């Protein structure tokens, strides 16, 4: 029997940044966000669409239309143990709350929370098999999706407009084409109270770009004169091996870990950057954490989350360039009152334990107004003063504190 499901959200977003006294940047945002999701399922197949659009009243560079899911699945066996799916899809391979080294497949929209960024659907063909020994997925990804970066006027960006990305597909061979052969394999299984996943990904890595600097010249009166600097993100081929594991202990404790090793296949390529010549650097990332959940006397529930991520391999400076969270600890607390309004508080801090004075504070509160309307409000504080000539890691966000208020209508 055919089944049809739909849902949607219309959200009015406002956010107000701390004034940075720079005229070029926009300190207030008023945006309208709409998201729609439609699912259609028949006996041996289903189709899914999900996407969102955002339009900002003040910063037109934030406007975007993103397809998250647009795929068709066909079950090869009646018991649905084998399937083939094709189209755009968002994957979530994460186990931890703040650090996601294993969750690598989708490109991201950097105009969102850096510890849980919005993703962009990735074009793929996914063949999956469910067996008594676990689930196996084999993916082919023919199109390397470019991430979305905040532009020069955004407070959450690097204060520069990035030009069209360059894909480094072979040693010293670059191109602007997004069509490249990429693939991934994933195995997952639940064993007792634990969930294990392992993966291998060959792709163009969009998480660790090198931003190249190029001086732009123009011919003026027979002379070629420098007129500006162009910044270009370079993405490199990489082989990532990694996995996740979650285990539920007696007494309400969850143990979680995510690991990944990224081997860049063209690490001899040199890119000229603001900080000198750079090459992609092989590295490993380990994130471990624990979560403790417990009931409150008023029928509510609380969760305490403690996570740590470290990046291994390169030196301290390179580590900080590879990840904002190269050696960080996260402490979070969630309180859900479980009442009819669904009132919920969440507070967290992420602190760099390698680099001094780098802390991100986050607080938010959500509640329903009725069955259709909901509010979310809170603030984020980026405390990471610049220590060198150029901002590195969280320093790029220093003083981009903001408060926000969202009003959503759900359908």
């Amino acid at each position, binding site marked *: 029997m055919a089944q049809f*499901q739909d*849902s949607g959200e219309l959200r009015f977003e406002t956010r107000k940044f701390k004034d940075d006294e720079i005229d070029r940047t926009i300190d207030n945002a008023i945006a309208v966000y709409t998201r729609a*999701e439609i699912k259609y399922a028949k006996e041996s197949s289903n189709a899914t669409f999900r996407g969102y659009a955002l339009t900002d009243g003040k910063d037109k560079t934030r406007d975007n239309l993103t397809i998250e899911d647009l795929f068709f699945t066909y079950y090869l066996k009646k*018991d*649905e*143990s084998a399937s083939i799916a094709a189209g755009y899809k*968002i*994957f*979530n391979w*994460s186990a931890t709350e703040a650090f996601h080294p294993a969750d690598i497949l989708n490109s991201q929209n950097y105009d969102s929370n850096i510890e*849980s960024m919005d993703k962009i659907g990735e074009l793929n063909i996914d063949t*999956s098999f*469910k067996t008594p020994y676990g*689930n196996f997925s084999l993916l082919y990804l023919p199109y390397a999706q470019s991430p979305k970066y905040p532009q020069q006027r955004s407070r959450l960006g690097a204060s520069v407009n990035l030009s069209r990305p360059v894909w480094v597909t072979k040693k010293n061979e670059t191109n602007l084409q997004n069509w490249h052969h990429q693939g991934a394999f994933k195995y*997952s299984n*639940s064993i007792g*109270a634990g*969930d294990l996943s392992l993966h291998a990904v060959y792709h163009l890595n969009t998480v660790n770009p090198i931003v190249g600097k190029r001086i732009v010249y123009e011919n003026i009166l027979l002379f070629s004169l420098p007129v500006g600097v162009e910044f270009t993100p370079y993405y490199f081929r990489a082989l990532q091996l990694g996995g996740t594991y*979650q285990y*539920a202990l*007696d*007494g*309400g*404790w*969850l143990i979680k870990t995510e690991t990944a090793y990224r081997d860049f296949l063209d690490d001899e390529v040199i890119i000229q950057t603001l900080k000198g010549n750079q090459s992609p650097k092989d590295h490993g990332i380990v994130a471990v954490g624990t*979560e*403790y*959940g*417990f*009931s*409150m006397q008023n*029928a*509510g*529930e609380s969760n305490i989350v403690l996570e740590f991520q470290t990046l291994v391999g390169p030196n301290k400076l390179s580590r900080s360039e590879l990840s904002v969270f190269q050696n960080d600890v996260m402490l979070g607390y969630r309180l*859900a009152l*479980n*009442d*009819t*309004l*669904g009132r919920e508080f969440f507070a967290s801090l992420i602190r760099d334990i390698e680099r001094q004075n780098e802390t991100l504070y986050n607080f938010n509160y959500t509640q*329903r107004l009725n*069955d*259709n309307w*909901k509010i979310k409000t809170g603030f984020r504080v980026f405390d990471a003063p610049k220590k060198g000539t150029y901002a590195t890691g969280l320093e790029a966000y220093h003083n981009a504190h903001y408060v926000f208020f969202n009003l*959503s209508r*759900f*359908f």
Partner: protein
Amino acid sequence: MKLTLLLASWCILNSHATFALTPEERGLEIAKKMEKVNSGFIGEVAEMTMTLIDAYNTEILRKMEGKIKEVKDDGDKSIITFLQPNDVKGTKMLTWSHKTENDDQWLYLPSMKRVKRISSNSKTSSFMGSEFSYEDLGGQSLEKFTYKHLRDEKSEIGNVWVVERYPVNIKESGYLKQVMWIPEKYHASSKVEYYDRKGTLVKTADFLDYQSYVVAGKNIYRPGKIHMKNVQTKKQSIFSWDKRKLGENLLDNHFSQDSLK
């Protein structure tokens, strides 16, 4: 004569064996009967509505869809899909209940497309703001309780067993004990009183509108609604089932983490 005496002695001994059951043994015997009579449903699907009623009689509705797959020699597997309120539409909770061990639970969060393993330690928390806790609606396997038969009562539908049950893992339960009224006709509760860890009565639940479902020639009874009343806050919640079907052959693959997405 000898044979008559022998038979009489055997009858006395036998009846003495029944009467000699302690209240705990008799309670366990009834619980075993309940489990046996209610097993064999194979699979169950239903639409569920929860009506939350506050102390001023204001009503709020919550809607869900549920699927349960019977698992031999272990607890059942179930999926609840939330349909209303709209902000949680599409959220799913997958539970693999176990006879003695802690249940495995995962929550699917559609906004992030994330399947998150959750701890089953928050069983005493309210389910969607209602007077039901996760514990009230979760797996009620025989092995997770000890039992004590209190008395038999007579009602319009025949004999009713009154049995107390106590959670084996008291630390993870919100209750010290539950007192159940079990009509012999249904082999399922018609009323339950819930006592908190201090032994104070907090809630009562009435199991109403029992319906009979025939699965493979066997009659299985299920309540059409549960009316939970919090005697302390005066709030109430009514959990009701519509379009319920038993005997459904549900695919095992529908009860996996991957199927939640």
